[in-house]
C-alpha cells in the first residue's frame, strides 16, 4: 500500500474521558489514502526537544464519505499530550498508512471475536467496520477497570455486538476479558486482540487453549516506522523482525510468547 506524508487538518479533538483524546483529522488536499484495519500512522509533534521523533498511533476509524481519519490517544507523555490538545484547524504532519494489519476473516462461517482493553480498543473499530462491510458480523469484547473508563461504545454498537467486562463490575460482567462468559457460550473462528501486553498474553492463552487462530497487535517503541532503523524488533520464530513493517499485528504462532 502506498505511503504518504500528508498535512492533515484537525476537524475536532474531544476528550471522551480525562486523559484520552478522540482526534478527527481530514485531508484538505485530497481523499484519505487507502488504509487497512490494524495499520497505524506516524504523527509529527511540533517543536519540542523531547518529541523530535514521530509518535505511532493506530488508525481508530476511517470515514471515506466525510474524508476523516480518527485516532484515539491516551495522553501519557509530552507527545501524546500535545496531540491531545490540538485545536480544530491545526495541522498534523502524518505518515500514513504504515505496517500490516489484521487478517480480514471472510466467508459465511467466519465469526471473529475482537478483544480490546484500554486504548487498545482503538484499531478494533475500523477493523470491525471493515468486517461488517464484507458481510461478517464482528463481536467486540471490551474490557476496562470501571464504567467510566470505557469509550466509544456507541460507535462499536453501530458495527457489531458488544460485550463488556469491568474489574469493579460497574458495567458488563465483573472481571477480566478472559473471564467473560461469552467464551464458553459461543464458538469463534478467530480472535483479534489489542491492549496491554499482559492482557494480550492472557487472551492468546485462552484462544490457544480453544484451538482458535489469534492475532495480537504490538506496540514496540519505534523510530522510523518504515522498517529502516531496526529499532522496533520483536523476537519471533523468524528471529528479530520489525514490528513497524511485519506487524504491528502478528499471529501468536509467529511470536515466542510463553503461552
Amino acid at each position, binding site marked *: 500500500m*502506498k*505511503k*504518504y*506524508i500528508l498535512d492533515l487538518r484537525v476537524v475536532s479533538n474531544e476528550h471522551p474521558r480525562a486523559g484520552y483524546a478522540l482526534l478527527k483529522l481530514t485531508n484538505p488536499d485530497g481523499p484519505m489514502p487507502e488504509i487497512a484495519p490494524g495499520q497505524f500512522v506516524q504523527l*509529527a509533534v511540533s517543536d519540542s*526537544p*523531547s*518529541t*523530535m*521523533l*514521530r509518535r505511532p498511533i493506530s488508525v481508530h476509524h476511517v470515514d471515506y464519505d466525510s474524508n476523516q481519519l480518527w485516532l484515539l490517544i491516551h495522553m501519557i507523555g509530552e507527545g501524546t499530550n500535545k496531540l491531545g490538545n490540538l485545536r480544530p484547524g491545526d495541522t498534523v504532519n502524518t*505518515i500514513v498508512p504504515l505496517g500490516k494489519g489484521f487478517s480480514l476473516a471472510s466467508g459465511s462461517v467466519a465469526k471473529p471475536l475482537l478483544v480490546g482493553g484500554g486504548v487498545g480498543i482503538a484499531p478494533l473499530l475500523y477493523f470491525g467496520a471493515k468486517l461488517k462491510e464484507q458481510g461478517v458480523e464482528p463481536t467486540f469484547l471490551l474490557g476496562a477497570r470501571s464504567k467510566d473508563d470505557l469509550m466509544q461504545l456507541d460507535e462499536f454498537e453501530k458495527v457489531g455486538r458488544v460485550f463488556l467486562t469491568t474489574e469493579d463490575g460497574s458495567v458488563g460482567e465483573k472481571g477480566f476479558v478472559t473471564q467473560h462468559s461469552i467464551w464458553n457460550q459461543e464458538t469463534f473462528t478467530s480472535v483479534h486482540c489489542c491492549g496491554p501486553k499482559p492482557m494480550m498474553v492472557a487472551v492468546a492463552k485462552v484462544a490457544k487453549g480453544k484451538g482458535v487462530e489469534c492475532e495480537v497487535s504490538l506496540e*514496540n*517503541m*519505534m*523510530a*522510523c*516506522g*518504515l*522498517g*529502516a*532503523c*531496526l*529499532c*522496533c*524488533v*520483536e*523476537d519471533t520464530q523468524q*528471529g*528479530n523482525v520489525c514490528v513497524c*513493517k511485519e506487524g504491528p499485528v502478528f499471529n501468536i504462532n509467529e511470536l515466542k510468547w510463553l503461552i
Partner: protein
Amino acid sequence: MADLNVNIGGLSLKNPVMTASGTFGYGLEYADFVDLSQIGGIIVKGTTLEPRQGNPYPRMAETPHGMLNCVGLQNKGVDYFCEHIYPTIKDIDTNMIVNVSGSSPESYAECAAHVDALDKIPAIELNISCPNVKQGGMAFGVTAQGAAQVVKAVRKAYNKTLIVKLSPNVTDICEIARAVEAEGADSVSLINTLMGMSIDAERRRRTLSIGTGGLSGPAVKPVALRMVYQVARAVKIPVIGLGGISNATDALEFLLAGASAIQIGTMNFVDPAVTVKVAQGINEYLDRHGFKSVDDIVGIVD
C-alpha cells in the same frame, strides 16, 4: 543552477547529499517519499560476513534533540545481501554503497571481497566505529593501530572506492584519520554515533537492553562539525561529514568546515523526504551567493 556534482575518491556523486547507514534501510523503504535518483548516494545497512541477530529489544530511546540506539548490526549476512537484496537495489539510479562491518581484519576483508564482486556497488564504507557490538567494531576504530590493521586488510581485498567511517569516541580522531589514509583509504566519513546512556527513573532501570547506546541527531551536530573541521585539515583525502544534519544550513556548515559531501541519518525518521530538500537548499544557497559549484565552498572557513 550551480554544479552540485562532487567526487569522492573516484566516486562521482550527482549531489553531495547521501544517506547514513542504518537509517535509510536499503533505500526502498523510502521510495514512496523521495525520488531515490535525486540522492547523491545511499549507504545501506551495516553488513557483516555472518548473519547477526543484533541486540535484544529495547533498542532505542529518545533524548533531547536526538536518540540513542543499540541495534547492534542486525543483518542477514553478506551472502544473503548479494543473493537476495542486491538484485532489488542494483537498478536504483544512484550510488548504492554498502556499509561493511566485521569482528576481525580477515572478516572485514572477506566481506568486502564479496561486495567487490557486485557490479553496481561502486564503493564501500567500512564501519570501524560501531559502539553497539561487543566484539570488534569500535575496538578497531578507537586506536590508530587497530584502524590501520583493518584498512590494510580490506585494501588488499577491495579495489573500488573505500570510505572509512570513524568513531568520535576517541581522544584524537585526526590520528585515526591519518592512519587509515596511510593504509590507502580513499575517503573518511565521520562521525558515527557518540556513546551514551539513558535511565528510566520511574522504573529504576536502564532504558536500553544493553545499557549503553549510540547518540545521534541534532544534539551531536556541534561535536561532529568540530571533528569534521579538524579531520579535513589533517588529511588530504576527501571527508564526508555527518552527525545531526537536519536541513540545508546544517549541511552547508559541514561543507564550509571541509566536508566534500555529507550524510543524513536520524532526520530521515523525522522527515523521510529531508534528503532532497537539503540538496535543493544547497543549490539555492550556491546560486544566491554566486558560487558555481559545491567544490567552491568546501573548507573555505578557516
